[in-house]
């Protein structure tokens, strides 16, 4: 054969699927990924800032933990991100690719702001909060269920549908701000009513408690209930679901109602607990970051505490680094990007092992 010259070399390495990795080995691989990500981020920042290696880490941790306010901010941000991550998780487990959590949470925020604008000061504060809750949940559920109905009835593509609903939600917010703000500034100032009570003097504590409870509830829902079981079966195999007589349409709609409820709560937390106002960027991209949080945690709400912590920690810490060294505000994105690169890549090594072939001397006959 003519081609023997060229192809007489064996492949240098082979990728072999691992059968079953012991859990602690898998965690070791992940820990190694996090550590290497930290190291590489450090190196990059040394190159960019021309400062010592250690100052990057000092800045990073200071940005997150230096003052009490920063620590509260950290937990407050985690709770918001986690709440939206919880919202998208049941649908993702069902393989319903909802990328519209941004819009679903935004209409929730808009609805609760609307209640404050129209009823603030006219009804007791407690009743106002209840009304805000109802309105936020109703609005988000409507936003989430529309794509689900279309999916169930006509099998439309939920990814495009939910994505487009985001833009509609943003436009709605812009419109209502125009209606409410007569000065023409286009910014709705801080609302005076409809604030969450500060438990023990801590403004964000209620937010955190609500999300902690929700995390446990969603975990139980997915793991222990019949609904959660149906969600898993529908996600794993539509044929099996049909075979055992699960009403797939019903499950899709029911799960998206749940997504709506959780997004509504997130919207309420944003308006009543954190920003006390609404703008087109109130949700701040969390609807998309939540997808990442949920996937990295393999749809397990308890792991999501960890992944959302990581995302928020990096955002906040890297922002501080950028301020300290006068780097552009793209710097946090670079750091987060590198981190995820390592973490996603490590999943490959958890699932596959690479075997190098020993170089063999070959004798031609």
């Amino acid at each position, binding site marked *: *054969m*003519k*081609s*023997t010259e060229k*192809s*007489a*070399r*064996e*492949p240098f390495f*082979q990728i*072999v*699927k*691992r*059968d*079953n990795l012991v859990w602690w080995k898998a965690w070791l691989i992940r820990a190694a990924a996090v550590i290497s990500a930290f190291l590489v981020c450090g190196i990059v920042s040394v190159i960019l800032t021309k400062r010592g290696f250690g100052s990057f880490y000092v800045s990073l941790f200071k940005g997150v933990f230096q003052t009490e306010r920063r620590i509260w901010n950290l937990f407050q941000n985690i709770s918001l991100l986690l709440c939206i991550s919880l919202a998208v998780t049941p649908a993702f487990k069902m393989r319903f690719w909802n990328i519209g959590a941004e819009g679903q949470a935004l209409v929730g925020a808009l609805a609760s702001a609307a209640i404050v604008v129209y009823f603030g000061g006219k009804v007791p504060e407690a009743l106002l909060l209840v009304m805000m809750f109802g309105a936020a949940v109703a609005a988000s559920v409507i936003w989430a269920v529309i794509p689900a109905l279309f999916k169930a009835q006509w099998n439309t593509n939920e990814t495009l549908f939910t994505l487009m609903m985001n833009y509609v939600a943003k436009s709605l917010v812009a419109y209502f701000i125009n209606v409410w703000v007569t000065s023409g500034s286009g910014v709705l100032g801080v609302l005076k009513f409809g604030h969450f009570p500060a438990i023990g003097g801590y403004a964000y504590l209620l937010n955190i408690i609500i999300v902690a409870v929700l995390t446990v509830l969603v975990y139980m829902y997915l793991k*222990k*209930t*019949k*609904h*959660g*079981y149906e969600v*898993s*079966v529908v996600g*794993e*195999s539509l*044929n*099996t679901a*049909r*075979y*055992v*007589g699960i*009403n797939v349409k019903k499950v899709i709609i029911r799960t998206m109602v749940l997504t709506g409820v959780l997004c509504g709560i997130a919207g309420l937390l944003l308006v009543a607990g954190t920003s006390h106002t609404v703008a087109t960027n109130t949700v701040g991209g969390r609807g998309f970051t939540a997808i990442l949080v949920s996937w990295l945690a393999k749809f397990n709400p308890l792991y999501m505490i960890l992944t959302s912590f990581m995302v928020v920690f990096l955002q906040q810490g890297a922002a501080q680094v950028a301020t300290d060294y006068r780097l552009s505000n793209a710097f946090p994105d670079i750091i987060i990007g590198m981190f995820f690169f390592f973490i996603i890549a490590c999943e490959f090594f958890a699932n596959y092992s690479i075997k190098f072939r020993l170089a063999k001397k*070959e004798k*031609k*006959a």
Partner: protein
Amino acid sequence: MEKAIAIQMKGITKRFGEVIANKDADLDVRKGEILALLGENGSGKTTLMNMLAGIYFPDEGKIYIDGKEVVIRSPRDAYNHKIGMIHQHFKLIDVYNAIDNIILGESFYFDEAANKAKIASLKKPEGNESRKEKFKRNIKLLAARLEKAGAYIKFNWLSRNRGEDIRAIADKYGFAIDLKKKIYDMSVSEKQTVEIIKVLYRGADILILDEPTAVLTPQETKRLFDVIRNMRDDGKSIIIITHKLNEVLSVSDRVAVLRKGEHIATVNTAETSETELTEMMVGKKVVLNIDRAEPKNPIDRLTVSGLSLINKENVKVLDNVSFTARAGEILGIAGVAGSGQRELLEAIAGLQPAATGKITYFKPESNEAVNLRAKTPTQIREMGVRLSFVPEDRLGMGLVGNMDIVDNMMLRSYKKGKFFFVDRKKPKSLAENIIKSLEVATPGTNIPVRRLSGGNVQKVLVGREIASSPTVLMAAYPVRGLDINSSYTIYNLLNKQKENGVAVIFVGEDLDVLIELCDRIMVICGGKITGIVDGRSATKEEVGLLMTKGRQMEQSPSTVGQRG
């Protein structure tokens, strides 16, 4: 006369994780012979051939072609060594026609000299030309230049008469096919033909066919074998992967037997027998003997009458099907794969709501007639009909591959109980029971079922379906892909259910088993019932004839072209 050896594989070992697919396997293929590669499912036949075709790379071992050691790293390497494989699942593009599929991936020869001459001749006008002629000439000149530019950037032009060489190949070996036909319009056998021509067109001298007859009718099989013999006479080597003994004996020159990844022996077909081959395949002399008790008190349990079904592609897959399944007997369903068996069982199980006709179930307690047609599986269960169904697609329908055994046990029963929460205690004890009583080889109840071997997966599925103490048990190809021992476990389970008074409906593909196991055999062909015969008196020939009854009338006698 000993023919020259074309390919030799020596000491080939291939592992997938902990599974050893091939262990120190040797094989040699001679020029101009038909070699059958025989073995049970999972004996490593396809893996071994995939290493020749460049899909896998062996962990150990060497491959020699014409006496020289070669390394095959990719399908392209394999083609360079003139090896081509026709896979079980065709790899064709539906919206292309046969020609385009065949030339796909080919790089085309660009004749630079001819192009140069063409450009030169087009540059100067022939005598005095009219404006129209000049315009035409300039267009042609532009086209030739574009062709040259295209070749420069490796953009391959398709020649207008590209079908001609392909047509020549088809005629040479006697393939009857319309090369301009789109793939989506083709039957399975036509698609297979396209795959074979594709491999021949790429110049393969060694053709590997993976289970080529699994999807063919007996007539199509015969036609395929004729073509294969033509190719052998032309000096090509053909390797047929199969587990069907009769085909091995009818078409091959030599047989290589694999068992559990090891090469057992290669024998000349003329000097061997079916029993000898079976022994080599299975390892020990097996007694193919299934107890068949006389049905006790057979009363009608399920009656189907005039059942018809048109599927989404607007094809009539069931045509006026009528039969009765009785308690305490096994009703076998025989037929070429895809004759409507799946649709029939699914219609009974409530998964084909569009079916028309009647499906009536008689309750064992009261003999009350219940209509099952156009009911959902949930409705059927709520009516108190204990219907169990072991579908053909075990991990895609009967079980969820990524869930563990306990969660798979729950599939049927999770709705029980008024609580919002699921109860995993009962399914867990059921799982433990099944593992113990059916000897499921598994490290525990909480490993995903897809990690289990085929036989164990089936035990889990059948175990669960039987656990709900059904009155009707339907099983579609329950032993497909199972080794002999697991197969017999399943046959015994079905027999036990029959003795317990269950109406068993068994869709099978092995006629010998159907004849030994079933009390009655119903034959389905093209969605029609062509006959119901008594399992005790039926012969294989009789059933085989019924299996193709409808088709013979539709198809003209095989058109074998001129021989090469």
